[in-house]
């Protein structure tokens, strides 16, 4: 079990300290919480419990970077993304966009903010309205914000379709005629229509064939370069994220357990949960793959309705100690740019 917790090394990324230097913070999330109430009662419902989907999450997203958000199914990644975009109103906490608090925006100012932040969805089948033509789908943001004349909008739609590698001739087609990858491109064209700076990509490739995944990832990277986009890229496995993301945040049961630059995280994972996740990722080098030891976590993820006291990973942690069952570990910067929430790492 010694490999589970490695000593903090002053290692691979000596330059990490400089990472944030001179970079503009685009989005800042502080102690964000989203609880979904569970109600019961026949006519007058009382709140009997709450699903703590996101339970105190803090991180910064720098302009122009891709921040990965990784974790098992149900750990609250999508909820985090949606709460940042104000698709869900947070239970508490703050979200700042270019320094401006957006959790209290309403009406017109919220609508204006929506032009800046967009979302790409996981399911390419559910994310396009089956009753709308591709042209109408991509033009919808422009119509909603009353941008341009009909003709200008048509031109913009053609331009957007071309930008995502689709034939502009498809505008009169309907979603069911397209493959998963093509639909994902249509969704991308829609989210780019308003020229946003920040995009939450919620597992945009996990529903696609492996052969198509790389194409969509490449497209996302190209668009990032061309348009100067900033991504929050949500994924449930670490392997895809490595090449795409500058930094990665690992989430477990509504909380962030570790954030670091990608290379640092892959070469020097500090949190026992991250180590377990990484141990499951196959290594291309056969020699290393041979020696690779999988850390199999025991048990299931506890219910987010009733998370364990202390560190919420303590039910499955192979290296837990007494204090883990008493106090919750804080997310602290143990190395420059490398944040971990674990009593054994500090």
């Amino acid at each position, binding site marked *: 079990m010694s490999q589970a917790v490695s000593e903090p090394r002053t290692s691979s990324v000596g330059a990490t300290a400089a990472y944030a230097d001179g970079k503009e913070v685009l989005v800042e999330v502080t102690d964000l919480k989203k609880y979904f109430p569970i109600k019961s009662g026949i006519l007058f419902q009382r709140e009997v419990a709450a699903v703590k989907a996101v339970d105190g999450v803090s991180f910064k997203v720098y302009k122009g970077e891709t921040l990965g958000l990784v974790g098992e199914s149900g750990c609250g990644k999508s909820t985090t993304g949606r709460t940042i975009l104000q698709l869900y109103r947070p239970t508490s906490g703050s979200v700042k966009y270019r320094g401006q608090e957006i959790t209290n925006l309403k009406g017109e100012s919220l609508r204006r903010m929506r032009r800046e932040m967009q979302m790409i969805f996981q399911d390419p089948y559910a994310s396009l309205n089956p*009753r709308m033509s591709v042209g109408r789908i991509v033009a919808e943001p422009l119509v909603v914000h009353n941008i341009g004349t009909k003709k200008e909008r048509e031109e913009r739609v053609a331009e957007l379709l071309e930008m995502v590698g689709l034939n502009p001739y498809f505008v009169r087609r309907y979603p069911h005629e397209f493959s998963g990858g093509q639909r994902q491109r249509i969704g991308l064209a829609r989210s780019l229509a308003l020229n946003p700076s920040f995009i939450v990509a919620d597992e945009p490739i996990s529903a696609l064939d492996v052969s198509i995944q790389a194409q969509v990832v490449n497209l996302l990277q190209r668009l990032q370069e061309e348009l100067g986009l900033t991504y929050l890229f949500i994924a449930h496995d670490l392997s895809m994220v490595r090449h795409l993301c500058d930094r990665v945040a690992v989430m477990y049961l509504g909380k962030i357990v570790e954030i670091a630059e990608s290379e640092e995280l892959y070469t020097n994972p500090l949190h026992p949960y991250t180590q377990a996740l990484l141990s499951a990722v196959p290594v291309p080098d056969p020699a290393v793959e041979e020696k690779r030891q999988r850390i199999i976590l025991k048990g299931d993820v506890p219910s987010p309705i009733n998370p364990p006291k202390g560190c919420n990973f303590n039910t499955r942690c192979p290296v837990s100690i007494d204090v883990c069952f008493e106090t919750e570990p804080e997310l602290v910067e143990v190395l420059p740019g490398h944040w971990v929430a674990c009593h054994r790492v500090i």
Partner: protein
Amino acid sequence: MAVAEGAEPLTLAGEEKPSNPWLDAWRLFRRNKAAVVALNVIIVIFLIAISAPLLTRLEILDARTGEAARHTINPVNLPQVDSYPDPLTCARDGQDQNPYWCSWLSEEALLEVQNKYCFRPAPDPNQRQWCYLLGGDSSGKDWLTQTVYGAQVSLAVGVLGATMSLVLGLIYGVIAGFYGGRVDNIMMRIVDFMYGIPYLVLVILLQVFFTEVARTYQGTERGGLVGFVLDLNSDMGGLLFLFIALGSLSWIGMARLARGQVLSYREKEFVEAARAVGASNRRIIFVHLLPNVIGPLIVAETLAIPGYIFTEAFLSFIGLGVQPGTPSWGAMISEVRTRGGFFSNRFILIVPSIALVITTLSFNFLGDGLRDALDPRLRGT
């Protein structure tokens, strides 16, 4: 950039025909032959119903005033109360006065038909006399004419009843499903409560009440809303109150269905995407939800139409439906029950029954076809 982005084929699989969801639905619908036939039958019935005044020359008693309308039977020729005019009797009162089909026949053929099929000898040629293609009822009204006008009542009840229940149920269900939470909870408890009320009993009680009100105020001058409603109802031959009674509960099933549909689409990612670009609730409801939820509702309403038609026929049969004098298939069938005489003219029972069966069956087949075409739950995607 290692993998060429263009590697994914840019052409689309499948046929090059333009395809949109409604067009596809129409193609699917056309594949169901029974439904296409049913649709045509319904169109024909509909055309017959709206052109009833053109098709028949014998007009019926004006329901409101109870006076004889312009063309009535010459009293001299009124048969005895306990027997019906025979079918195929034809007037000899100048060609232009004869019902449409008489003019198809030559003078000789007409005579022959009469000689062959009419029990009563041809009356005095100077007297005005009418033709009964299918015979008439005990008060001398032509049965064919009544059947044709009866189609108006059945279609109106079926189609307007369904539309009303669809609109009410849709509004109610969409509000409940879309806003959710406490609003939904209270609205749906009300629906659950109403579900427990026996439908037919309530309809009968309402109709008893309405007919009583209509009878009480008959002939008296009443102003205001009540008077207006009573007049309107009376102009419609009692149909207005019938709609209200039928619609009183029929929308709740639709409300449940609409709410369920909205709930299933409300959380779909395309709705979320619309929210993310800042679309208003109104836009989300009308552009994103309604076009998706309406299909199964239309199917359900079409399949409910036979029920409305039967209920109207049943109510009119027991005398609680349309006002007396308004032709309705149910009321026509009850003629036989109250006055007898089935064996003197079998058409009297058979004609309205067949009309009822054909109409309701057609709506059933139409509903089946629409279900194949419109209900995505039964389709691939």
